[in-house]
């Protein structure tokens, strides 16, 4: 049995009583080639997860992954990837997820990296991408690139003129670089917006999810994309084939089994609620296999929506299970490791829950699914008035 990692290494909920997964899982009849690949991943995990736990160093695991190109599996080899097919990347992601192994932020792997590959020249890519693949460089992104927020500022010559004093960002905590959209030229004209990667000055303030815009320097990415073209590009990067290259259920299964192990023999969580979540996840696991077999983008979109919702339900159950320890707030007077583990888990869970609830992902994903070829779209058909029956 492979070791399970602790809370320090992943976003799940750690408790020492965690036990191995016992729940029904979809048993995939893999081809010999796929099975051989999965076996190689399992062997790697058996070795490296032991070392990671023993050395208490999740960064070491990411570096080991990156040596095989597996931290960014679909990127080209020259930028630190392994050039895996979407199916191989899915098999890898599922195996990592089921064992709760540390992984790079999917936003870095699936969004920022491919975006840079589309827009930056080789010199910049050589500087940025390998460091991202090794987990040594973290970027933040302005939500206007994916949502409907206003463009945060304009470029006037070489200067970035922000539209407000502060930017609200995603993944800003720990980030050293920023990618954002800026108007080029007239502040009123956003038709030909340009993408700008901003180097944060050393020592620049990075409050969680907020950053001062004073004193930023920029590496400007030359592009003539319109806002609409850019939005389409981003949509393509985060859906369709990219969605199918990820396992949406592996990590959820790991987290559910952790919660089940914690709740076993107690009244911490309603058994009916756990069973309900298990059924929903089981269905999603089959759906994930169907999406792979049929190479269906619409099924992959369902996965992205439902997995987000199941993740949220898992967090709610986690908070429910923690009981009083879900109430503990971060205390500056305490060292991080002085807080009881459940209290730390409670803080993480509630913070994550707020992001789930506040995120626009499932709304936007529903819009995209409605309009997709296999979704229930309006289309151009005449429609059918059932009353005629």
């Amino acid at each position: 049995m492979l070791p399970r990692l602790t809370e320090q290494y992943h976003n799940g909920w750690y408790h020492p009583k965690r036990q191995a997964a016992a729940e029904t899982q979809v048993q995939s009849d893999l081809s010999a080639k796929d099975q051989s690949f999965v076996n190689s991943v399992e062997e790697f995990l058996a070795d490296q997860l032991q070392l990671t736990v023993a050395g208490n160093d999740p960064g070491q695991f990411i570096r080991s992954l990156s040596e095989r190109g597996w931290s960014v599996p679909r990127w080209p080899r020259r930028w630190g990837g392994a050039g895996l097919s979407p199916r191989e990347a899915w098999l890898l992601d599922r195996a990592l997820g089921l064992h709760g192994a540390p992984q790079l932020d999917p936003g870095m792997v699936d969004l920022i990296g491919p975006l840079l590959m589309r827009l930056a020249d080789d010199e910049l890519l050589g500087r940025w991408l390998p460091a991202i693949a090794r987990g040594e460089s973290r970027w933040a992104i302005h939500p206007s690139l994916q949502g409907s927020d206003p463009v945060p500022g304009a470029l006037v010559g070489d200067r970035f003129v922000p539209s407000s004093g502060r930017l609200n960002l995603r993944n800003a905590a720990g980030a050293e670089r920023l990618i954002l959209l800026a108007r080029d030229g007239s502040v009123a004209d956003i038709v030909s917006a340009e993408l700008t990667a901003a180097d944060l000055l050393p020592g620049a303030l990075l409050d969680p999810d907020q950053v001062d815009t004073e004193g930023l320097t920029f590496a400007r990415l030359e592009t003539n994309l319109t806002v609409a073209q850019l939005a389409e590009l981003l949509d393509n990067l985060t859906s369709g084939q990219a969605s199918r290259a990820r396992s949406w259920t592996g990590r959820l299964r790991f987290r559910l089994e952790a919660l089940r192990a914690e709740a076993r023999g107690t009244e911490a969580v309603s058994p009916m609620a756990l069973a309900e979540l298990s059924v929903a996840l089981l269905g999603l696991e089959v759906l994930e296999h169907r999406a792979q077999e049929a190479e269906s983008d619409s099924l992959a979109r369902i996965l992205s929506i439902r997995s987000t919702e199941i993740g949220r339900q898992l967090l709610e159950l986690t908070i429910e299970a923690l009981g009083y320890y879900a109430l503990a707030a971060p205390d500056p007077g305490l060292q991080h490791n002085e807080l009881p583990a459940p209290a730390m888990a409670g803080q993480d869970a509630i913070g994550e829950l707020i992001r789930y609830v506040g995120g626009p992902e499932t709304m936007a994903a529903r819009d995209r699914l409605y309009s997709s070829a296999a979704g229930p779209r309006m289309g151009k058909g005449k429609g059918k008035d059932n009353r005629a029956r």
Partner: protein
Amino acid sequence: MDFSFSDEQTLLSDSVEKFIQNDYPFEARQKLTQTEQGFSADNWRVFAELGWLGIPFSEEDGGFGGSAVDTMILMEQFGRGLIVEPFLASLVLAGGALKIAGSKAQKETLLAGLIDGSKQAALAFAEPQGRFNLADLTTSAREEGGGYRLSGYKCVVLNGPSADFFVVSARTRGEQRDEDGVSLFIVPADSPGLSRRDYPTVDAFRASEVTFEDVALGADALLGSLHEGYPVMEQVIDEGILAVGSEAVGCMEVLYKDTVEYCKTREQFGQPIGKFQVLQHRMVDMFMEHEQAKSLMYMAAMRLDEGYDDEAKKAVSAFKVQVGKSGRFVGQGAVQLHGGMGMTDELNVGHYFKRLTMIDTLFGNVDFHLKRFGAL
């Protein structure tokens, strides 16, 4: 995991689909439901001629299929057409019990009749006090003179009015809820002491309340081993869940597709109502619920084909939970998006919704199967 159908399975699906398109329009189905029998004997003959009545049975038993996936395909199409012919009650349930526990002689005399369409049957298993517990039986049988005497009461026996014989569960030893001591008997519908009260169900099928008053049965009426009928019943009901759940998946597909089509034409505020984001999201949710139920349908069918064990039972219960939840969501969404028309008798929407609501309760509702799933 291979989700592709064989050529034969694809042909089967296509042929049922064509039958429904050409010969089973909604209006014709509605007329059938108004008849005393509640379905068409002509259609039943067609089913037999096309070999559909032999689908749940292996060639060894005189059938044409035998796999759970075959039955799943057939029933999903039946759901699309809202078929009222008693395939589930006669073939999957009563025929299923014969398939699992029947002797060679019983199969030759009774199963053959079911497959060629000359006979119909019903499974009498439910009792008012038992809710969904198959072992909770007050109906009892005692051994007498080399045969048995059967007494008791069974409720909501599907296809009771048309059955030539019943497969009846009865207690032969132990306490009222013991799993041990349950036996199955084959009881001819014209047996002295057997009486029926027939009625239509909410979803336009037919059922009976059946009373057994000291009904005399021969030794050959016993189906399977004495006192060991519970595992047979459990398997039959689980196979029934797959069948009826597949039917529900077919119903859901029709409902969400018809709703999308309707929203293209129904106008409010100068545009089709399907242009409104909140309704689009509702339709997306209906679409997703259907796909999730379909996924667990595949899972349950494949597990049952791999062998009847705890994994198969879990998969079946998970499927039933999803069918109950998804069916309710899709049905309610369809009715609400159709507005007042969704509640009328002349529109198909309400009829699909009624069937889905019945299916949710049949063989155990969401809560029952959540508990079973958690306990397995």
